C-alpha cells in the first residue's frame, strides 16, 4: 500500500537522505580539523561564484548526466551496472579512434561520429557482461566490476603499445586535429551576448547530455520498449507472462546503458582533453551510481543530481586547492549519498511513513 503521497516519495525522501549525507560530511570535515561552514562557502564561490566555476561545474555535470543515465536505465531493468567506469574508458577509446584516424571537415559531423563511436565502444563493453547475465546467469554486478579492471588493462595496452606517438614517454594519444575541436560554452554563448569564461571546459556536449536526458525520458515512459524494460525490472515472471524476453531486455537495457556511459567521452576526451589519457574517466562512472540513486532513476532527477555532483566535484577541487582537505572528500560524500539514498532508504522512509500514517489517521477520525 502507498502510505506516502507521491511528492513525499519523490522530493522529501531524497532531500532528507541528502541532508543526512551533508551532516555526516560536515562532521568528517570537522574531524580533520577544518571548518565546514568555511568549506561550504569556499565550495559555493569556487563552483558557482563565477562563470569559470560554473563552466567546471557544468563540465563535470555533463559527465555525470551520461553516467547517471547509464546506471538509471539499467536500474529500470532491475540490473545494477557498476561498469560505467570501464564503459566510459572504452568510450574514450572509440572517440580517440574516430578523431585520430578519420579526417573530419567540421566538428559538427565529427561530434556525431564520435558520439556513435563512443556509444558503440561503451555498448560493446557492456554487451559481454549483459550476454553472460542473460544467457549464463553470471552475476552482472561482479562481471561489470571485473570489466572495469579489464578495461583499464586494455586502455593501458592501447595507449602504451599502440596509440602513443613515437618518442613520447606519456601513455596518451597525440592531440586531436584542430577541426574536431568542440565549441565551449564561451563560444556558444558569445553570439547571444553572454560573456562566459573562456578557460572553463564546459562545451557543446552539455547540450547533447540534455538531449540524452530527454530521449531517455521518452524511451522509459513513452515507448512500448520502455514499458517492457520497467516491467522486466519489476517482475521477471510477469514479464515472461507478457511475452517480454529476458535475454532481449537484458541485452537492450545494458547496450543502452553502456552506450550512454561511453558517450561521456565526447565531453571529457573530445571536449576537454582533446586527446586520450590513461585516467580520463576519473571515477565519473562510479559517481553515476550516486547520481542515479539520488535522482530516483528519473532522467530529470538525474539531470538535477548531476548538477549537484558537478558542484560538489568542482567545489571539492577548489577545497583541495585552497585548504588541506584532499579531493577524496568528494568520494566520501558520494559514498554517503549512495548509502543514504540507496541502502539506507528505509531508514529515512520508515519514520516518514509512520508520520504520514499518524497524520492521516488524525485527519480521518
Amino acid at each position, binding site marked *: 500500500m502507498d502510505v506516502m503521497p507521491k511528492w513525499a516519495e519523490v522530493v522529501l525522501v531524497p532531500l532528507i537522505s541528502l541532508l543526512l549525507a551533508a551532516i555526516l560530511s560536515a562532521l*568528517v570535515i570537522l574531524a*580533520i*580539523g577544518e571548518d565546514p561552514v568555511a568549506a561550504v562557502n569556499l565550495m559555493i564561490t569556487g563552483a558557482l561564484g563565477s562563470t569559470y566555476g560554473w563552466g567546471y561545474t557544468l563540465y563535470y555535470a555533463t559527465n555525470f548526466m551520461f553516467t547517471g543515465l547509464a546506471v538509471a536505465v539499467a536500474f529500470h531493468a532491475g540490473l*545494477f551496472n*557498476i561498469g560505467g567506469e570501464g564503459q566510459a574508458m572504452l568510450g574514450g577509446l572509440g572517440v580517440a579512434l574516430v578523431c585520430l584516424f578519420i579526417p573530419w571537415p567540421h566538428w559538427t559531423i565529427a561530434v556525431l561520429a564520435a558520439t556513435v563511436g563512443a556509444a558503440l565502444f561503451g555498448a560493446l563493453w557492456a554487451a*559481454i*557482461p549483459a550476454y*553472460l547475465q542473460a544467457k*549464463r*546467469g*553470471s*552475476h552482472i*554486478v*561482479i*562481471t561489470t*566490476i*571485473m*570489466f572495469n*579492471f*579489464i578495461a583499464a*588493462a*586494455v586502455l*593501458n*595496452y592501447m595507449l*602504451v*603499445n599502440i596509440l602513443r606517438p613515437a618518442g613520447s614517454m606519456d601513455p596518451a594519444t597525440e592531440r586531436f586535429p584542430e577541426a574536431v575541436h568542440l565549441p565551449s560554452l564561451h563560444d556558444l554563448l558569445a553570439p547571444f551576448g553572454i560573456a562566459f569564461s573562456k578557460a572553463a571546459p564546459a562545451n557543446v556536449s552539455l547540450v547533447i547530455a540534455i538531449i540524452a536526458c530527454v530521449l531517455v525520458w521518452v524511451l522509459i515512459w513513452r515507448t512500448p520498449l520502455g514499458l517492457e524494460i520497467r516491467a522486466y525490472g519489476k517482475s521477471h515472471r510477469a514479464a515472461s507472462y507478457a511475452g517480454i524476453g529476458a535475454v532481449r531486455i537484458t541485452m537492450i537495457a545494458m547496450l543502452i546503458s553502456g552506450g550512454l556511459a561511453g558517450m561521456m567521452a565526447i565531453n571529457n576526451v573530445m571536449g576537454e582533453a582533446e586527446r586520450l589519457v590513461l585516467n580520463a574517466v576519473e571515477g565519473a562512472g*562510479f559517481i553515476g*551510481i550516486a547520481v542515479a*540513486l539520488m535522482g530516483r532513476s528519473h532522467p530529470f532527477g538525474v539531470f538535477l543530481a548531476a548538477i549537484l555532483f558537478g558542484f560538489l566535484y568542482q567545489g571539492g577541487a577548489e577545497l583541495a586547492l585552497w585548504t*588541506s*582537505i*584532499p579531493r*577524496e*572528500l*568528494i*568520494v*566520501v*560524500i*558520494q*559514498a*554517503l549519498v*549512495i*548509502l543514504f539514498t*540507496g*541502502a*539506507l*532508504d*528505509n*531508514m529515512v522512509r*520508515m519514520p516518514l511513513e509512520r508520520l504520514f500514517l499518524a497524520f492521516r489517521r488524525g485527519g480521518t477520525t
Partner: protein
Amino acid sequence: MNFLALFDLSVLDSTVRLAVPLLLACLAGLFSERGGIFDIGLEGKMLAAAFFSAAIAATTGSVWIGLLAGIGASLTLSAIHGVASITFRGNQLISGVAINFLAAGLTVLIAQSWFQQGGRTPSLIGGGRFEPITLPFADALSTVPFLGPLYSELISGHSILVYVALLCVPGTWYILFRTRFGLRLRAVGENPAAVDTAGVSVVGLRFAAVGICGVLCGIAGAYLATGLQAGFVKDMTAGRGFIALAALIFAKWRPWHALWATLLFGYLQAIALRPDIIEGALGFKVQVQLLDAMPYILTVVILAGFVGKAIPPRAGGEPYVKER
C-alpha cells in the same frame, strides 16, 4: 621451454603470501553469504583495515595494537552494512558499493590529515610489522633434498597471520558443519523463515555472520599493510576484495575449496609479477597488461559457468521480511 620454471620456489612462496589476504577475505565472504548477506564491500573493509592497522602500528609502534585497530575499522563498516541490509532491509549490493567508496575516500582523507604524506602512512619498521617466523628445524632441514627447501622456504618463514589464515580453513569447516551456530547460519542463508519460526533470531544470526566477516576482513587488511607490505598506500587492496568474491563463487561457498581457489588466484598474481619467468618457460613474451588482467578475466570465465555451475545460498541477497 621449461614449464617447471613456472613453479619456481620463489613464485610459490609469493603465491602463498599473495593468497593469504584473498583467503581471509574469501572466508569472510563465506560467513556473510552463508548467512544470506551478500557482501561486495569486502574490498572496502580490507582497505579500511589496512589503513588503520598501518596507521596505529606506525603511531604506537605495536603491530598487535595495529591489528586490533584494523579489525575495529573493518567491524565498523560491517556494522554499517548490517544496519543497512539487516535492520533496514536495504539493497545489499548498493550498501556494499557505498562501503567501498567510504573506505576509499576516508582512508586517504584521514591519512592526509594525520601524516601529510599524500595519502600514505609512514613506512613501518621493527615492531610495526609482522615479522616472518622461522618454524622449528627450518634451517637444519634446509639441506634435505627437495623436501628441505620446501619446508624451510615455502612453509616456514611467513608471518604469523599466514598461519592464522591457513588455520581458519579447517576452523571454518568445523564451525559450519559441526556446530549449532554453523547449522543455524547455513539455515538462515537458505531459509530464514525456518530459523525464525524455530524461535531463533534471524537478525542476531545475520549480524553474527556479518561480524565474523568483519573480523576476517580486518585481519586480511592488516596483513596487507603490516605483513605483505610495510605501510599503507592509497587503494592498496587493488580489487582483492572482488577477486576474493570470485574465489568464493569458484569454491561454491565451501571452506576447503576456498583455499584452493585463493591459492590459484594467488599464483596468478605471483606469476604476473615475474614476466621473466613466463618468458623463460613459454619461450615468448606475454604482455604485462594481459598478466595484470588475468585474475579478472579468469573470474569472468568462472562466473560464466565454464567451470561448473555455482548455486549460491538460496536466501542470499534478499532481506528477510516476515510473510503476511
